[in-house]
């Protein structure tokens, strides 16, 4: 079977779909992570509040993590490809690292936002344009 599971989706009859709701389908996980990622991205684009933007970024990172773990899950069915080190575990390990990274960014981000707020009493992007053109 193909890791991407595209064929499964391709000849998905109704029963398969119902079954699919309960069995792991890579494609659906990817779809979900894509959705979350886009939501996060939209958040960054649309929201004016820097804090919310940071949160949206975290959301995006979560989507990435989801992608990783689901890929890892798909890999389990394959086992590691020839000559490659960790295949399946890799994804999960990577997800952990992403958590760490996200945490670090969040911490620094909050610190910076607070520092800025101290000076300007605002975190609205519309006010954060002292430098432009």
């Amino acid at each position: 079977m193909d890791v991407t599971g595209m064929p499964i989706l391709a000849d998905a009859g109704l029963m398969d779909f119902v079954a699919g709701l309960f069995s792991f389908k890579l494609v659906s996980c990817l779809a979900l992570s894509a959705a979350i990622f886009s939501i996060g991205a939209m958040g960054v684009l649309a929201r004016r509040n820097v804090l919310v933007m940071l949160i949206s970024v975290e959301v995006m990172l979560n989507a990435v993590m989801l992608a990783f773990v689901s890929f890892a899950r798909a890999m389990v069915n394959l086992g590691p490809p020839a000559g490659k080190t960790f295949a399946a575990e890799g994804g999960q390990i990577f997800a952990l690292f992403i958590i760490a990274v996200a945490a670090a960014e969040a911490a620094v981000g909050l610190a910076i936002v607070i520092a800025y707020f101290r000076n300007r009493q605002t975190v609205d992007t519309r006010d954060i344009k002292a430098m432009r053109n």
Partner: protein
Amino acid sequence: MNVSQLTELLPVGVVLISALVVVFLDLILSPKERYILPMAAMAGCLLALGVLGQNYLSAVQLYKSAPPWFAGFAPQSAGGYKTAILGGAFVIDGFGMAISAVALIAGALSVLCSTHNDEDSALSKGEFYGLVLLAVSGMMLLAFSHDFLTLLISLEIMSVATYILAGSERDDVRSGESALKYLVLGAFSTAFLMLGMAFIYGSTGSFSLSPVILHSSDPRNYLVIGGFGLLVVGILFKVGAAPFHFWVPDVYQGAPTGVTALMAVGVKAAAFAMVGRLLFETFRAPGFREHWTGLVAAVAVLTMAVGNLIALRQSSVKRLLAYSGIAHSGYLLLGFLINRRADPAVMEESLHAVAFYLLAYGVMTLGAFGVVSLTREDGRSLENLEDYNGLAKEHPALALCMAVFMLSLAGLPPFSGFFAKFMIFSSAIDQGFILPAVLGILTSVASLYYYLRVVLRMYMPEADSASASCKYAWTSNLLVYGAGIGSVLLGIFPHWGIGMH
């Protein structure tokens, strides 16, 4: 794996240790002894540089040959030289060394041009220098990393440190703003980068940067290529290429000048290391190559155009240099253009060109920012064009160096910028990308105009303008003159700069 391999990474270790040392010293030193901190930081960088050179030389005399220029071309070993260490998490090769050398130089010099800030500012605190060193270590790791995981980690080490540095001028609103913008956008783009990694992992099942070989009929191609696209987004952001360049001017302008210098040189160098690894190793397969050459060419031209054209209308030198930095990223990208028949030898030449360009560009940009960081009598730093009125009268030597930097950035002989540009364009033209080269050259004609505006201000002030002289620390002198001499020498004897083989 054995510990001996870690010696290859010793330079990074040295930098990290000296970071800790600096922070520690900060605790025990009394305020008036603080002047030691930057010295220590610089010492760290220079020591690391020394160790790097030592590694290089020992490798040379151990294996009777220089370490391979690019590990990607000599997968595991060349002349018995083990490039891959820690199970392929890192590779030690000439390219990486060159980039990390540039990073170290950037670190040292940016420390130099941050020292003369008044005592109470955050910049004189130990953690500032610590963070600088941390960022540098991140850049070096990035230059060596050969694995998505290490890539991500080192990228984050570098980025997070620079986020903080950008905002380290706490009571300055613009510094904070630049930090914010950098942070949000950086994180945003990093998310793309990670997603790209995820896709590639998903399709190849590995994190290694070694070449991806997929049969063109393989449906996973889409996944890989998509992942590649997302990776490119993340990297081009760091590079500051259009249309991901928006952060550059604001951040450069807002950040403390020393930090700006670090970002302009170090971060860019590290990012181009990534570009090199990805394009010339991971996605080297012709199937990918024909995808990305067009892309890179387009981005390069767009970047050069945007950078140079907007720079025409700047009144702040710092911002002007930011835009010129964008433009130079465009030139650098030209260096990665290779045709479908190109073999590793050709790529090696291109990488040489890129490395030399980074070196030359680093030296002159650091020098320029060194001049910018000088503060006038009234405390403002020489950020705006009109601050340069008649500088040549007050400080001829300084003005001369600034002129050299400007002309060198514009790519006029006999300065380093010219030869750097020469090599980049020669590799592009050699590979038959005439049109991008011509367009790039045309934009650089425009660039000459704004570089000359600075010279104009210094040497030919308008009659009514009041010329303000500036006071400056010996450190900046050292930096500026050193950089000036450097960019002349690199111009006349470029092969000294390309001694990496």
